[in-house]
């Protein structure tokens, strides 16, 4: 997580629960309780999970049905059911598994955390995905401007090369580290021809291609979860009733202990915030990511799961929970995020290129007390016009986030519209994001 220089005023010296001890008792969640790198990491991994044997023709359906029963869906933000993704690409002939470690979401660090804590789980998951889909190659994409995950990955790959024969070959790619570079068609485009921007896909089921071969893009955490489920299926200990599914959440903003938590899917947002050291002044939280949705504190009882969050207009997205206190201005925070997102457009589609800066400018006027009812009406109109009109979902995420802000920070908006800006600054004074807009 982003570094916090000092322990903020009002925070305990250390978290009540160590952040690397998983919340809950599910055996599957225990995987974050160690932080291995180097040979010791591989030994610990082997001690816990055993040497990997990948699924064969007979056992692959068992894995897919376990994944479907648990309801594992993509953890990069898209949330597509993992079993269906793997099932849809089961074809012989040698595809490519793309491991998406781009983590362009500024409020998320959980993918980097997984690679630091448990690189072998990710590599196991990638090998399993390759075996299930008949892929002949694995490509791990780490952004060119972020070297952190490279060292643990390199060590892990060297360990495996020395110990495990006959694994599907793995190579590392370093695409440019921009927000949309991790969008799966942009990633495939970069690998295929160094053109790392999203493509128009009228049929989402159409396979992405790299070098003419079908490419299947999976998020880092998703693959680690696949490996965990497979280790249980393989050992014959999988029990859908007993084995819950965990999810990794990056908590940031106005909390004493920003960081990555592993929590059972369905843990209430309030419990996640509490564990990260948020207090009762937390007024709202951005859920999912910069293209996610704000929820008010009255909805903090909502379980962190797809269906439950959908009921309050949000989704788990990339597992982001960003808290703001009532002292922070929700509108100013939203404006900063929208301006950042406008700058991260790949610049291909007019409605995104012109619409997002216009939306950010409307928000700036409102946040600065320079906009009235007419500004708010114009913003509403622009949100409706931009929604759904890009080749990818980047503009849609911004529209969703801004709409949720206008709903959740309604009283802030009303005050600003009446020319009485609150004077609160973006985010909270207690902690701030180490990355992203500033």
């Amino acid at each position, binding site marked *: 997580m982003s570094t916090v220089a000092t322990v903020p005023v009002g925070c305990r010296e250390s978290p009540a629960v160590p952040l690397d001890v998983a919340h809950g008792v599910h055996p599957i969640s225990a995987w974050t309780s160690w932080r291995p790198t180097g040979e010791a990491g591989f030994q610990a991994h082997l001690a816990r999970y055993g040497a990997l044997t990948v699924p064969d023709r007979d056992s692959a359906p068992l894995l897919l049905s376990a994944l479907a029963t648990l309801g594992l869906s993509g953890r990069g933000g898209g949330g597509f059911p993992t079993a269906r993704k793997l099932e849809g690409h089961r074809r012989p002939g040698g595809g490519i598994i793309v491991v998406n470690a781009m983590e362009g979401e500024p409020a998320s660090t959980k993918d980097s955390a997984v690679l630091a804590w448990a690189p072998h789980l990710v590599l196991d998951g990638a090998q399993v995905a390759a075996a299930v889909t008949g892929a002949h190659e694995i490509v791990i994409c780490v952004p060119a401007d972020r070297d952190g995950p490279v060292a643990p990955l390199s060590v892990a790959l060297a360990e495996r090369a020395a110990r495990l024969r006959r694994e599907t070959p793995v190579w590392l790619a370093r695409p440019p580290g921009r927000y949309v570079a991790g969008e799966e*068609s942009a990633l*495939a*485009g970069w690998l295929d021809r160094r*053109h790392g921007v999203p*493509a*128009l*896909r*009228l*049929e989402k*089921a*159409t396979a*992405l*291609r790299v070098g003419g071969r079908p490419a299947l893009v999976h998020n880092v955490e998703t693959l680690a979860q696949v490996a965990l489920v497979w280790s249980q299926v393989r050992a014959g200990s999988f029990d859908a009733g007993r084995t819950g599914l965990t999810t990794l959440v990056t908590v940031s903003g106005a909390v004493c202990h920003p960081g990555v938590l592993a929590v059972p899917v369905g843990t209430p947002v309030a419990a996640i915030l509490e564990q990260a050291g948020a207090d009762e002044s937390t007024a709202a939280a951005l859920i999912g990511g910069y293209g996610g949705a704000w929820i008010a504190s009255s909805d903090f009882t909502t379980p962190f799961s797809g269906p439950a969050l959908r009921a309050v207009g949000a989704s788990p997205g990339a597992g982001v929970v960003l808290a703001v206190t009532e002292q922070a201005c929700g509108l100013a925070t939203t404006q900063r995020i929208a301006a950042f997102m406008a700058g991260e457009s790949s610049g*291909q*589609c*007019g*409605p*995104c290129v*012109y*619409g997002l800066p*216009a939306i950010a400018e409307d928000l700036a006027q409102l946040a600065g007390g320079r906009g009235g009812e007419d500004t708010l009406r114009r913003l509403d109109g*622009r949100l409706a*016009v931009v929604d759904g*009109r*890009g*080749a990818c979902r980047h503009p849609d995420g911004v529209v969703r986030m801004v709409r949720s802000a206008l709903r959740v920070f309604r009283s802030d908006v009303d005050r600003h519209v009446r020319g009485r800006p609150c004077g609160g600054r973006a985010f909270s004074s207690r902690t701030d994001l180490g990355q992203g807009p500033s």
Partner: protein
Amino acid sequence: MRRSGLLFADRPRAGAVVKRPAATMRGRSKTHPVRIVVDPIRCDAFGYCSELLPELVTLDEWGYPVIAGEPVPAALASRAAEAVRQCPRRAMLLVRAEES
């Protein structure tokens, strides 16, 4: 799943001659309901579509087309096909409307 072969996730090189669905859908538009899709990556806001088919295409404040309604009513099918043909960027497509 039926592959159209037209909806490839690629951006053709500038100047490349690309077969767009319009060419193949033209003869079928009478039998199958179609809808207009704008490829926002190719679209450069020339605005011809809105002039040729104002009933279905309006322009946003930046000049990019906003498509209203679907599928294309039978009475407008031939003019929709014409608007698709006239796009200088070949950014409009007619695709089969999903059965509902």
